[in-house]
């Protein structure tokens, strides 16, 4: 049944070469944990991506119940946690996943650094990786505000003051960041929009570049 459907589509669109091109490539011996266990350090990039995928999925589902509004945000989060079926699990996935992404990304960065993989000709991929790092930090900063509880509010208040401490233009950065003079309704909608629309778009674009470059250049050789 599956085979027949696949063949029918393949006959018309020739999809086999497309996915073979993406999926069929040799894994060099020095990055294969089956050969040498310590090669597991090469898994961190892929694990980061796996967790990013679960973040996107759990985030999409959380958005079914969450409301980015100062009156309802906290109560909708409470509703997700206390009442929705497995709501605590799904919120937990997003909550713990957020920290895990940063941990995995950091380990991936350490691996790239200590294997010297950032060196020529892969400097551009390192730069893109650093941009991804900033985007993920942005996710963390904006997402932290969304539950609209005390911790969220004051963490963002501190973040906004840190932004304000930039010489000369700090005041303007803060106003644009929180959407006005007060940390309130406009801040929450702004952070929500950044968290679920702007940053994901940026992240997917950068990840695309990251992956295209690594396929083009291949994994760096053994030490």
């Amino acid at each position, binding site marked *: 049944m599956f085979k027949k459907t696949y063949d029918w589509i393949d006959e018309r669109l020739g999809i086999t070469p497309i996915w073979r091109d993406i999926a069929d490539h040799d894994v060099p011996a020095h990055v294969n944990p089956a050969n040498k266990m310590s090669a597991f350090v090469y898994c961190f990039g892929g694990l980061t991506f796996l967790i990013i*995928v*679960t973040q996107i*999925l*759990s985030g999409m*589902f959380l958005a*079914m*119940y969450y409301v980015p509004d100062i009156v*309802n945000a906290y*109560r*909708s989060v*409470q*509703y997700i946690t206390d*009442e*929705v*079926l*497995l*709501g605590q*699990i*799904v919120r937990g*996935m997003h909550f713990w996943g957020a920290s895990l992404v940063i941990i995995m990304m950091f380990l991936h960065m350490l691996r790239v650094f200590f294997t010297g993989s950032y060196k020529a000709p892969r400097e551009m991929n390192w730069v893109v990786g650093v941009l991804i790092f900033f985007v993920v930090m942005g996710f963390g900063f904006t997402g932290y505000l969304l539950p609209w509880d005390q911790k969220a509010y004051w963490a963002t208040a501190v973040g906004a003051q840190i932004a304000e401490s930039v010489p000369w233009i700090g005041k303007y950065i803060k106003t644009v960041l929180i959407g006005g003079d007060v940390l309130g309704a406009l801040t929450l909608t702004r952070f929500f929009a950044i968290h679920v629309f702007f940053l994901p778009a940026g992240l997917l674009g950068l990840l695309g570049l990251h992956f295209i470059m690594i396929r083009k250049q291949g994994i760096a050789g053994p030490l």
Partner: protein
Amino acid sequence: MSDKNGKQGLSRRQFLSYALGGTGAFMAATIAAPLVPFAIDPLTRTSGGGFADSGLKESDVKSDFPTMVDFKVHRKDGWIEENVKMRAWLIKDESGKIMAMSPICTHLGCQVAGTVDGNGNPKPSEDGEWWFHCPCHGGRYTIYGINDKAKPPQRPLDLYEVKVEGGKIMLGAISQRKA
């Protein structure tokens, strides 16, 4: 299936692709397992079911014309709980049983109006047997909510479940009547 030597059984390649596919499917299932119940949570919630006090006594309901009543129903909408205004038209049918009709037109959901005078008191119909009129597409119903088949609505007005407790009329869930 047979491998190069013509031996029956699972080839190494096939075994590995099954193992890989199985592992992938397991991982995908682990992620999907909490997400699907999360999304279908509304299926686990029952809508209402309780009765609300209409504010009318049994003796307030007449048998000649329907009596209108506005009452409040407690509703839970996610994290918002509120008392929602509802309207019903009550009449005693030929056997003396109280029926409570919803004023929502069975065509497309506009609110039908009863035939009343300037003070809101019921008065006889002006076009034969038709007593409720819908402002939207000309649907009309008798005092018992039976629809005019020549007009858009194709089934009678819906009915509230009625319960009399100590002379007070309690109204419950709305149900449809057959056309």
